[in-house]
């Protein structure tokens, strides 16, 4: 049973950065699975560790990052013990592909769109150029870009078109899983809505499994089946989107939900006072305690463990735990 429909398994994943000020705990002890066919949304503020986690799964971290511990299994393969060439041949792009943040700028301005497709494919498999281009045309059509744009340079495309090209590029080798890091962040709301609709269509027709990263919890509520809330490099909460939105357990999740304007309501949106902690010198106890409106004495000293609160709904919070015990 175990591992059959869990296409990605991440266990106790911990990444540190070497910085001039010392070690920075970017991702600490993160565990989650991604089920086949689902979209897992990862939400959190800048610096919460979302991108480090996502790129870490594929071992695409910058040189000063260090995977300290943990295990990552993608489609049955242990990522952390594979060699770089094995990874390129057996996993990256053809099983799992990654659309990095600000990926509009990831396209090389000196190469035409067609060359970006050809180069990507030929780095990972032996396919003839004509075949690549045929498949690329088909994909571009599918994501709503005129295939004639294959002969354009990236700077001749708009931000929305570049994002669509990046998505097509990520799908060129027919991966089972796609990780998208802030795919709509730099876009206007109307173009964002178009990309979100495109994403939903792709998910339906290509039966894609995906990880969708955003700082915007409202965007996540549009696309994700489950949501993981990250704070200060750790998971604060994890669960079905509907469950987490109707019954957020972690005060950080509650604060995030109140910080997003809801157009349908007439109340002014709120905010979470204070700032996320410095991860070179993280606070003792719960990392959220300096900003938490419900902080208790224990929160200042003891790190809360990640626990299940009914079904598949998890949170790391002393307050949630206390309420849970009292309710029983």
């Amino acid at each position, binding site marked *: 049973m175990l591992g059959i429909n869990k296409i990605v398994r991440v266990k106790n994943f911990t990444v540190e950065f070497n910085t001039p000020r010392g070690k920075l705990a970017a991702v600490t002890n993160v565990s989650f699975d991604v089920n086949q066919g689902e979209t897992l949304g990862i939400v959190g*503020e*800048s610096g919460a560790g979302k991108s480090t986690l996502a790129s870490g799964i594929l071992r695409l971290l910058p040189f000063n990052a260090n995977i300290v511990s943990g295990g990552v299994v993608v489609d049955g393969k242990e990522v952390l013990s594979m060699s770089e060439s094995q990874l390129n041949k057996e996993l990256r792009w053809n099983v799992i592909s990654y659309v990095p943040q600000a990926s509009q700028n990831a396209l090389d301005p000196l190469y035409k769109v067609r060359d970006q497709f050809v180069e990507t494919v030929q780095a990972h498999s032996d396919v003839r150029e004509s075949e690549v281009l045929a498949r690329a045309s088909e994909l571009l059509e599918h994501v709503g870009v005129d295939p004639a744009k294959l002969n354009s340079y990236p700077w001749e495309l*708009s*931000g*929305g*078109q570049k994002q669509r090209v990046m998505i097509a590029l990520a799908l060129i080798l027919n991966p089972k899983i796609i990780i998208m890091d802030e795919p709509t962040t730099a876009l*206007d*709301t*109307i*173009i*964002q*809505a*178009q990309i*979100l*609709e495109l994403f939903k269509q792709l998910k339906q027709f290509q039966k894609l499994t995906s990880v969708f990263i955003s*700082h*915007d*919890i*409202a*965007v996540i*509520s*549009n696309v994700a089946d489950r949501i993981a809330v990250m704070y200060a490099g750790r998971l604060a909460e994890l669960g079905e*989107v*509907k469950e987490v*939105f109707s019954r957020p357990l972690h005060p950080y999740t509650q*604060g*995030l*939900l109140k*910080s*997003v*304007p*809801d*157009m*349908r309501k*007439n109340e*002014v*949106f*709120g*905010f*979470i*006072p204070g*700032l996320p902690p410095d991860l070179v010198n993280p606070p003792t106890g719960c990392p959220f305690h300096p900003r938490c409106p419900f902080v208790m004495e224990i929160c200042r000293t003891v790190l809360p463990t990640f626990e299940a609160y009914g079904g598949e709904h998890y949170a790391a919070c002393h307050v949630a735990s206390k309420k849970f015990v009292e309710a029983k």
Partner: protein
Amino acid sequence: MNVESTRNVFEAQDLRVYFRVKARGSKLFVRAVDGVDLSVERNTSVGLVGESGSGKTTLGKTLVGLIKPYSGRVLFEGRDLYRLSRQEMKDFRRRVQMVYQDPFDAIDPLYSVYDAVAEGMRILRLYSDKQQMDEAVYRALETVRLTPPQEYAARRITSLSGGQRQRVAVARSVAMNPEAMILDEPVSMLDASVRGEVIKLMSDLKLAGKTFMMITHDIATVKFFTERIVVMYLGKVVEVGDSLDIISEPLHPYSQALVAAVPVPDPEHKVQSLAKGEIPNAVLPPPGCRFHPRCPIAQEVCKTEEPLLREVRKGRFVACHFA
């Protein structure tokens, strides 16, 4: 000061701002703002909403005197902005402040917070006395809640978080004690958890009697901050009305698309993409209604006849043949 004649702080009359296309021999123009009439009353706030390429930032810069219009007029308190005397212009530069999008660009990274906040006051030589200048800087930092102000003033801009930098950007405008502020995407760079804080800060300034214009592509943000919304598309105003009315019942198909595209924190509610394609460039705008190639309800008439902005109900103006 004569208050009566100046109910409108800003007024634009058939304003056109064109930029020449920089190709050799080109006689083409980018029509960034193409015939806009608009007014901003004292002590009110107006949201100027549209996608990138709609001309909203150009319009804002023209209102504060940074770009000269091709034709039409900009009035500040009833007087033609481009006919002010040197002294009047200097006065205007203090009384009207623009807060830019992306504060990381607007502030020199080597500056201390003090320098950043004091810069405008130094240029206009508002204070000759060091102590007065210090007080003005600290007061501004307190207003944006960067406290204790002495401590923040000494810090480098680069050591601040995005939200703090945005507050410094607001503080340097506030320090000039302006009567009107034009804010260009003041929160779009910020994390959700601190956006509300910056909006709250500006709401407090609004209560203190300032006139505001907020420029943004996100219609949800202005709902909670402005009384009136002006929707712009490709250099033209397509809808004007009370913020709550426009958001609960947008009448122009473009406004409808803007509202439907805003994600809401509720998994049961999905965004809808009502406008197809992307905003075309403003060199050769589509004939007829400029929105017709993207409009879900476009008819033949829309391809040839330009709809005029007309009052369809009290205080609500829409430029659409079918509104």
